[in-house]
């Protein structure tokens, strides 16, 4: 390239600049070594980053599994007493239970809570049946002199009572 006067001067200035750069330029080997060190450091950094990431992922997975396990356990635990009460045979006349028997319920695989809403008629019926229910062992609680214990004594009756309870009567 043919240079004009200005261009020659500019080139001269750039030449001086390049001489200064050459003086200040670091050794090639030192730059290469520093590059190697940087590479090994970055590799180590990358490795440790991935290890940390893997550990964090494992921790998160374990936490999620634990949360799911606890929730599953909580959902299952309230169902157990119901199962027991349903499995036990009802003594005497079985009451009309509010909760339908477990066998009648559809088998649920998923631990979902289903809310049964009852109509007012159904509820009244259930309440009535609850009040009408008598225990089958209630008769065992009755004693022969129960009336006497339940009523107040009146004047003139005490003698009769004594007479009726005298041992002669039994003989």
């Amino acid at each position, binding site marked *: *390239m043919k240079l004009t006067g*200005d*261009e020659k*001067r*500019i*080139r001269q*200035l*750039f*030449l*001086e*600049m*390049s001489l*200064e*750069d*050459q003086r*200040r*330029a*670091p050794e*090639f080997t030192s*730059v*290469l070594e*520093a*590059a190697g060190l*940087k*590479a090994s450091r970055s590799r180590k950094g990358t490795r440790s980053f991935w290890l940390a990431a893997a550990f964090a992922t494992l921790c998160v997975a374990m936490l999620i599994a634990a949360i799911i396990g606890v929730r599953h356990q909580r959902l299952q635990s309230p169902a157990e007493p119901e199962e027991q009460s349903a499995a036990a045979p009802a003594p005497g006349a079985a009451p009309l239970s509010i909760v339908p028997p477990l066998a009648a319920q559809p088998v649920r695989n998923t631990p979902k809570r289903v809310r049964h809403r009852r109509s007012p008629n159904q509820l009244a019926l259930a309440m009535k049946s609850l009040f009408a229910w008598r225990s089958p062992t209630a008769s065992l609680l009755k004693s022969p002199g129960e009336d006497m214990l339940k009523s107040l004594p009146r004047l003139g009756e005490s003698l009769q009572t004594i007479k009726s309870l005298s041992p002669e009567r039994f003989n």
Partner: protein
Amino acid sequence: MHTGEASLMETQELIAQLEQHHASSFGWARACCRRDAAEAEEVLQIVYLKVLEGKARFKGTASFKTWLFAVIRRTALDQRRKSLLQLLTMQRVVARRPNAVAPERPDESAYRAEIQDLFRTALARLPKRQSEALQLVFYHDLNIQEAAVVMGVSLGSARTHYERGKKRLRKLLEETEAFYETDWGRKENPATVP
């Protein structure tokens, strides 16, 4: 085994090429890093890593020097972008900027150093593309076509940057008093008796 030997040869060749162009690469890296020597050295380290690890591959479409300079330019730009994103790096960049504190020199060298400072200041005031075009042509002896490849622009665009850069640099240098005293200034000054 053969591929291993071949890659070893390639690596050795690459190292030899890099060593051959090391001084000019450093100069170009400085130009790309606003004359910051420390930043330029860091950029060179990254570039050498890229080249030796095969992240930047020389395909032979241009000369090795042209390709290497393009890699240096891109890397310097990336580095600057990264450093701008870091919050505290701003302070470091300011601290690293070449300060005007020059070592004590004899008169002649002091004068030359002053001229160089003024020249660098004028160069820094040029638009980036123009400055790049001038540096590639005058400093690194590339022709405009090669400079265009390094800058990643078309030949016409590179030529425009080069011409405008020359004019503007000349104007900037004429404005400074020191250059007014030199041949350059005297020639342009109508009041001066030749």
